[in-house]
């Protein structure tokens, strides 16, 4: 009795300590800026409440819908690629021999270890048929110059490829970890029952890492809607051949820093927040992410 009563508070305290650091950072860099953005979005530069004025005003901007259409198309490609290839690669990785697995995991993760901007600069070189090591392939596809490769119609796919290259490695490693969590006995039993590799993946592994996939989807939607660096850098490198408001985040940046209109910028970021939240809620409820096992 006596030992339990002294033990419990200590465990609780340790829990607070672990969560504390994260909570402080979350408040400082997540919650407070969000609240500030919502406040900015509902007011004008004289501090008056303007209701939804900033939202309707930015919505009426001729750049608003194209930016969201661009990001929508990009998200379709990006989420599809992420879902299919990350899961596929992780399952394949899991089936490999131990030593090859370690090497491959390292290789998959490597691009993600490069700082974001640097990895995009790598792509700028890769995409220029005059400098690229894969120039013959680009020329075979009919692209003779950087401006031909970055034609507006190619952009969503190009950004998807760049994002996949930089970001998917980390997720493959996470999924691999999730696959390792599946009890060996379950897989063994399935094999004894005569399950093929395909059936094993489809009927056992995939359902058992479903929550991880859902978690990845939520974060990928949030990160994907905030696409900024890729179009911004490609635009600068191509002397502005891509619109400076290609993605909603870029448009918000234009509002804030070209037009000195932080309230319009905040309205667009709140739009993005709502979009991310709606997607997250849908995914959470459709996949039962928060259900307890």
């Amino acid at each position, binding site marked *: 009795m006596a030992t339990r009563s002294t033990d419990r508070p200590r465990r609780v305290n340790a829990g607070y300590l672990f969560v504390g650091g994260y909570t402080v950072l979350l408040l400082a860099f997540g919650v407070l800026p969000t609240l500030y953005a919502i406040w900015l979005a*509902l*007011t*004008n*530069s*004289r501090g*008056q*409440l*303007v*209701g*939804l*004025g*900033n939202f*309707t*005003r930015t919505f009426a*901007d*001729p*750049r608003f819908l194209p930016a969201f259409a661009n990001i929508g198309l990009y998200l379709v490609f990006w989420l599809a690629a992420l879902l299919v290839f990350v899961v596929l690669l992780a399952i394949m990785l899991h089936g490999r021999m131990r030593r090859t697995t370690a090497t491959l995991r390292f290789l998959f993760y490597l691009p993600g270890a490069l700082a974001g901007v640097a990895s995009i600069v790598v792509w700028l070189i890769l995409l*220029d*048929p*005059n*400098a690229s090591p894969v120039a013959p392939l680009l020329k075979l596809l009919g692209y*003779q*110059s*950087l*401006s*031909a490769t970055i*034609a*507006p119609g190619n952009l969503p796919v190009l950004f998807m490829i760049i994002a996949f290259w930089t970001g998917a490695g980390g997720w493959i490693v996470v999924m691999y970890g999730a696959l390792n969590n599946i009890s060996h006995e379950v897989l063994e039993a399935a094999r004894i029952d005569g399950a093929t590799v395909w059936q094993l993946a489809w009927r056992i592994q995939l359902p058992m890492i479903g929550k991880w996939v859902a978690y990845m989807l939520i974060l990928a939607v949030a990160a994907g809607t905030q696409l900024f660096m890729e179009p911004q850098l490609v*635009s*600068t490198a*191509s*002397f*502005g*051949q*891509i*619109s*400076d408001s290609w993605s909603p985040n870029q448009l918000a940046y*234009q509002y*804030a*820093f*070209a*037009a*000195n*209109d932080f*309230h*319009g910028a905040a309205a667009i970021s709140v739009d993005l927040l709502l979009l991310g939240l709606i997607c997250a809620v849908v995914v959470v409820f459709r996949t039962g992410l928060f259900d307890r096992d």
Partner: protein
Amino acid sequence: MSTSPVSRVRNRRWPAAVTALAFVLAGCGSADPNVGGGSAAAPFQPVAQEEGSEITIWVDATRVPAVKAYQAARPDVKIKMVTYSGGANGSNELQTKVQLFDRTGSGWPDVVWPNTQDISWATAGEKPFAAPLDGLVPQSTLDGYADGALERCQVNGKLYCLRNDLAQVVLWYNKPLMDQWGYTVPTTWEEYQALGEKVAREHPGYLVGTAGDAYSEEIYFWASQCPASVLTGEKAVRVDLRDAKCTRMASLLDTLMTAGSMARTTVFDAGFIANNASKVLLMPGPSWYGQVLFNETFKTPAGQIAAAPPLKFAGDQETFTGSVGGGIWMVSSHSKNLKAGADFVQWVTTNEDFLKTSGTYPADKSAAKVWLEKQASENYFAADVAPVFEAAAGQVWPDWAATTQYSQEAIYSSTILPALTAGDTLTSKLPDWQTAIEQKARSLGYQVN
């Protein structure tokens, strides 16, 4: 009976919350960011000055030697140099940073090398970022700049910047090649078009220019006096690409692009440098093309490149030309050492010994003379560029709005260049270009008419 007091309180709170939310959403102020803003600048009040304090200078990589040369000439001045993008390629880095400094109330640099568009926002508002230089720079120095060179620095009767260099567009050509093929250098755009078509037939692969640069509109459409943006008020512009002075240039460029002697890519493209640089017969372009493009980038051997006067349309009375860049220096109104800042911008724009080493044509008249003498003594050009440069410096069409807050280069780049790459004609894209300029101008609070 079944409702507990707690839930009753909760129920009562709901309408209150809804009312509060409705109040917030209904609002009362105007969401229009232009209402009430844009008030005229108050008389300039410098911050407390500290004699001899350190000045921070922001420059792009190209301007680093200028700061170093100044430091060598004035070793007692304390300087902190910071390199940044210089607003190249339409980036608004300076504006972004200054707006954040404005919000936090500190951090401004003392002297900056901005891009031309920066002049527009830096001189606006109640407390403009740029410090007026009247009084800090003696009138005798100001009189030394080329005629009209300081025009883009003058806002509401005050001088907010000093001009570093002029970038008047001239007609560059390969002299030995022209002589060898028996061509005469064109003097009108009509002759230029005819020669371009002839070159395409007789020497396929050779070029008379490119329409695929971000600044091609400043080379061709500015010279054609096209009203892509003409200021009609402080924040009002006229945009009319349907004007005959725009369509004539669009159709000229289309004809030559179809013929094949007008390129569709930028001259700084790696492919252009590798494959086309040696095949440039003619190339309308700014004065800095001579050193920066032909000598340093294309590595064209000495004795080949020469400059001819800007072209004019046969039907026009007067010759006008365009301008690509032409840098400026600004001093910050937040500077604690305005004197040092003003001395720096004066020195780098007028010091003859330093300026003669630069790749660009100095805006200061006597420095320009020394610069031209040095060009002649180096014998890089096939003919003396001095008379052409000096004449063209005064022929830049004054109505083209060079200091609007939006960059014509960025708009041309994002609307026209992908279309040219796809093989479309310029003429077919003029309406899109028009819309893009109008939208950009409106989004920055300009009135478009």
